[in-house]
C-alpha cells in the first residue's frame, strides 16, 4: 500500500487498541489511549465501587485501576493470570482499564460497524458503544464514559453488589 493510500485509510478509518477479555475482543479508540502498561502493585481501596480494582503508582502518578471483568460481570481473574492495563487520561486523572491480554491495533472498515445488538446483557450495553464485524468474530467498541460512570458510586448496575 502506498504511503498516501495509508494516510487515506487512516483518515477514513478509526484505529482501535484492542484487548481480550474472556476470549472476547474489545477495542478502545486509539486517540483515547495514553499508554499500555502492566498493572503491577495494585493497592485495593476499601469500600470502593466494585469495578475499581485499586490504585497503583505509575512513574510517580497515581492511576485508578478499573477491572473490565468486573464491569462486564465476568468471573474474577485468577490472581496468577496475566493482565494488562490500557492507560487513559481524563482531566488530570489517570485510569488503567485492566484486560486479560493486549491485541493488535485494528482499523476496521467503517461499513462493518453496527450499533449494540439489542439482546446484549445490561452490563455490556452500558459500556459498549457498538460493534464491528471482523472476519473472525466481532470487535466490541468500549465506551469510556460508560465505564467511568459504572465505576462511580451510584452508577448503574453494580452499586448494589
Amino acid at each position, binding site marked *: 500500500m502506498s504511503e498516501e493510500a495509508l494516510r487515506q485509510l487512516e483518515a477514513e478509518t478509526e484505529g482501535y487498541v484492542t484487548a481480550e477479555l474472556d476470549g472476547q475482543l474489545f477495542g478502545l479508540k486509539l486517540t483515547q489511549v495514553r499508554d499500555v502498561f502492566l498493572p503491577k*502493585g495494585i*493497592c*485495593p*481501596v*476499601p*469500600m*470502593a*465501587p466494585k469495578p*475499581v480494582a*485499586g*490504585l*497503583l*503508582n505509575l*512513574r*510517580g*502518578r*497515581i492511576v*485508578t485501576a*478499573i477491572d473490565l471483568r468486573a464491569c462486564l460481570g465476568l468471573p474474577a481473574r485468577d490472581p496468577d493470570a496475566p493482565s494488562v492495563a490500557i492507560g487513559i487520561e481524563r*482531566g*488530570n*486523572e489517570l*485510569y488503567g482499564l485492566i484486560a486479560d491480554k493486549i491485541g493488535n491495533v485494528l482499523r476496521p472498515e467503517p461499513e462493518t460497524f453496527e450499533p449494540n445488538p439489542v439482546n446484549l446483557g445490561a452490563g455490556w450495553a452500558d459500556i459498549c458503544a457498538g460493534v464491528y464485524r471482523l472476519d473472525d468474530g466481532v470487535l466490541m467498541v468500549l465506551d469510556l464514559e460508560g465505564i*467511568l460512570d459504572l*465505576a*462511580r*458510586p*451510584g452508577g448503574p448496575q453494580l452499586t448494589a453488589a
Partner: protein
Amino acid sequence: MDELLGEFLTETQESLERLDVELVRFESEPNDPELLNNIFRLVHTVKGTCGFLGLDRLAKLTHAAESLMSRYRDGMTVSADGVSAILASLDRMNEILQGLERDQQEPAGSDDDLIVRLLALAEAAAPQGAREAVRDLEDQETLADMAMVRAGDEAIRGRRVSEPEEAEARLPDDLQAAGLEYLVAEEMVSEPIASEEAQGTDAPGREAAQSIRVKVDTLEHLMTTVSELVLARNQLLDIDRRKQDTEWKAPLHRLSGITNELQRGIMKARMLPIDRAWQKLPRMLRDLSVELGKSIELTTSGGETELDRQVLEFIRDPMTHLIRNAADHGIGTPARRRALGKSETGHIDLKAYAEGDHIVIEIGDDGRGLDTDRIKAKCIEKELLSETEIGQLGESEIHQFIFQPGFSTAAEVTDISGRGVGLDVVRANIEVIGGTVDLKSSSGQGTVFRLRIPLTLAIAAALIVETDGTRFAVPQHNVSEVVRAKRETDCRIEMINDAPQLRLRGRLLPVYDLGGLLHLPEDEAVPRGRLLGEMATVIVMEAGVRRYGLLVETVLRPEEIVVKPKASVLQDLTMFSGNTILGDGSVIMIIDPAALAALAGVSEIRADFSQREAETQEAREPEEAPVPLLLFKAGGSVRKAVPLALVARLEEIPGKEIEVCNEGDVIRYRDGLMPLLFMDGVTRQAGDALQPILVFDDEGRHVGLAIDEIIDVVEAPLSLEIRSVTPGLIGSLLVDGEVTELIDISYYIGEGLTQRLAAREAEAAKTARLLLVDDSQFFRNMLAPLLTAHGYSVTLAESAHEALEMKEEGTRFDLIISDLEMPGLDGFAFAQEAKKDPRWSETPLIALSSYSSPELIARSRAAGFIEYVGKFDRQKLMAALKAVLPQWGAAA
C-alpha cells in the same frame, strides 16, 4: 481572538477587583488625589480595552462610570450615592464579564438603568449653567477614550498594563477646541483597528516584566513531574547503594541536591500572598455597613504572608463568613456604640502572620463580645448541657459551644449571616485542611477568632498504620495519642454490649475497629477479635468536637507524605481525604478522621463533653499525663525508651553505607553527612544488613543514633522509678510493667555537637545565666544538658519556692524558664511573685507547658511570661532563647 479575550478577561477582572478596594478607600478619603488618579487609570484601562475588543455594553457602561469619576476628579463632593452607583456598575461589569467568559460574547441586555443613573449624577453635579463645560468635558472624555484605545491596544499587545494617562494628558491639549473630534473619536472606538496608525507614536516606554502569568495547570504539571523526578532519583540512590562503583556518587549526590532544590522552588511558586483573599473584603464590608446602617472600618496587617494557593481557596469562605459575622453580630449600631461610650465606628482587624509551618489569621472586632448568658440558655434549651454541667464550665469553655451545629445566638436572624450556615461549618471547613479555630471574647470588648492554617496541603505529617493487611495514612494533627491497651491494667478495653470502650485515665472512649469500619476482608493470621485481646493498639483521634479511639493492628511509623487528591470515581468515599505514594512505591489512602467518625456515628456532643472533662482532669494531674515513648533495643537486655516527640525520623541504612571519618562515624543523609553515634553494645551491621537509626533534629542539623531494633511506640507517664548515674541514661521507668531505660538524648546530641561546642568555648566568657524551674526531674535532666550544650549556664530549681529562695538570696539571672504546671506554687503564681520583686522584675520569663491552648497562653502572658513553649518543642525553645537574649550569640 480567544487568547486575546482570555487575557482581557483576566486583566479586567483583576482591575475590577482592585477598583472595588480602591473605591471603598476613596469614599472615606475623597481628598487623596493619588487614589483618585489610580481609580481613574483603572477605569480607563478597562474602558479602552473594551472599546478595542468591540465590547459595546462594557464600553458604554465604563464610559458612563468614568464620566462620574471625572466629576470627582474635578473637585465635586463625593457622595455615598455616587460611589454606590459606581460600585453597582462594577457588579454589572462583572456579570457581563462572566457571560463573556461563558459564551465568548457579551450577553444581551441593557445597562441604560445604570448609565442614566451615573450620567444623572454626573450632570447634577455639574455647576449651574455650565452645560457647555460639561460638553467640553465630555469631549475630553472621548478623547481620553481614543487615547485609551491605543493604550488598551498596547496593553494587550505588550501584555502589560499601560499608563494611559500619559497618552491622555497629551491629547486634550491638541484637540480641546475641536468640536468635531467627538464624532471622530466615536468612530475610532467602534472601529478600533483604525487606531493602529496612532500606535507607536507615543507608546509609553516599556518596563521590563518582573513577573509573568503562569497557568495553574502548568504549575501542577511541574509539581507532578518533580514528584516523578524524586522517585526516579530515589531509585538511582537505591541502585547506587548496592554497587561499589564510586564514580557515580558525586554526580548522583548533586542530582539529589538539585532535585530537592527544584521541589522547594516549585512549592514556593505555588504560594500566594494572603491579601489575594482579602481584596474583596473592603467592598463587602462597605456594602454591609450601608445595609446594616453601621459604620465599620477594616484594618489589615500581614497581607504579604504567603501560603499555598490551594489553601488560600479553602480559607476564603470561612474567613469571609467570620468577617460577616463580626460585622453583623459583633459590631453594634453607631447609636448603641455611642451609648456604650465607644467610638461610633466599629473596627474589624484582620491579621496574618507565620508561625512555624502554619499561618495564623486573626479576625478581631471591637464589638459587644459573646453573650455568655444567652449561650448558656441555648445550651440548656438544646439539651447540650445541664444546669450543673454549665456551672462547672468556665466562660471560654461556654464560648466554644457556638461552634456546635445549629447554634445561633443572634436574637433575630438577619440577612447577613443568619443564613443557616453556622460557625460549625466554618470550623469544619478549617479542620478539613488540618487547621484549627479558637476564639477569645470578652463582654463589651469584642471577639477575636484565631485560625491556624497549615502553609501547604501538599505535604502533611501522617502516621502510617496497618490493619488487616492494608496500610493507611492517619493525619498526625488529628492524633492526640497512641495507646497500647492491655488487659488488667488501668488502660484497657472493655466491652459494653459488644461495643469496645477504651478506659483511659478513668474515662471511657468509644473504640472503632478501622478494619471493621472499612469492611476490610479479615486477615486470617490476625482474626479481628484478637485485636481486642491481650494487647490492642488504639489511636486516640480528635476530629473537631469528636474524640474516639481507632483500633489498628500496628502503627508502623510517622512519615511526611505528599498528599494527592483522590480520583473522581472515588469522590464519594468521604472517609478518605486523598491518597499518597509511600517510599516503597505503594499507594495508600489517607484517612479523613472527621468523615470516618461520621461513618462510625460518633456522637458529637457527648464526645465533646467527655473530652472537656478529660482535659480538665489532665490539667489537674499534670505529672500523670502519659507521653508517647519509642521503645527499642540497643545493647544489653533492658529495653530503652525515648519520648517519640524528640525523634525526628526513624531510618534503616545498610551497614556498608556507614563511613568512618576521623571524627567518628558518618552516613550520607538527605543532602549532607550526618554524624552517627553508636550506643554502647549496639551491633554494627555490615554489608547490606540494615542498621536501624533514630534521627534527631537539632535546629536543622541531624544526628543519628544507631540502635539494634525498634520495638514499639507506647504511651506511658514519665515517672522515673530509679534515677541513673550512667551518662546517657536519665533513669529507669516501668512501661507496661517492664523495666525500661530512658535515654538522655541531649547527651547524645551533645556528643554529636562536640565540634560546635569547641567553637563556642571562645565565647564562654559571655555566657547567659539561665534559671530552669521544673518539678519534673525528667525535664530538668533533659533540658539542662541541652541548654548547657548551647552555651548557657544553667541553674536548676525543683519548685517555684526553691526559685524564690534564690531570689531572696539575691541571685540574678538573665532569663528564667519555668514550667507552668507544678504542685504547690504553679508557674503563673511564680511569675507574678517574680515580677513583684524589683530585683527580678526585669528578667524575661519563658513559660514551659505540656499543654497548649490559647487560654493558657493568654494566662501566661498576663502573668508576665513573654514566651510560651511546648515542653517537647526544643527548637521553639531555642528560637525563643535566641529571640529573648539576642546579645548572647552563643546559641546561633
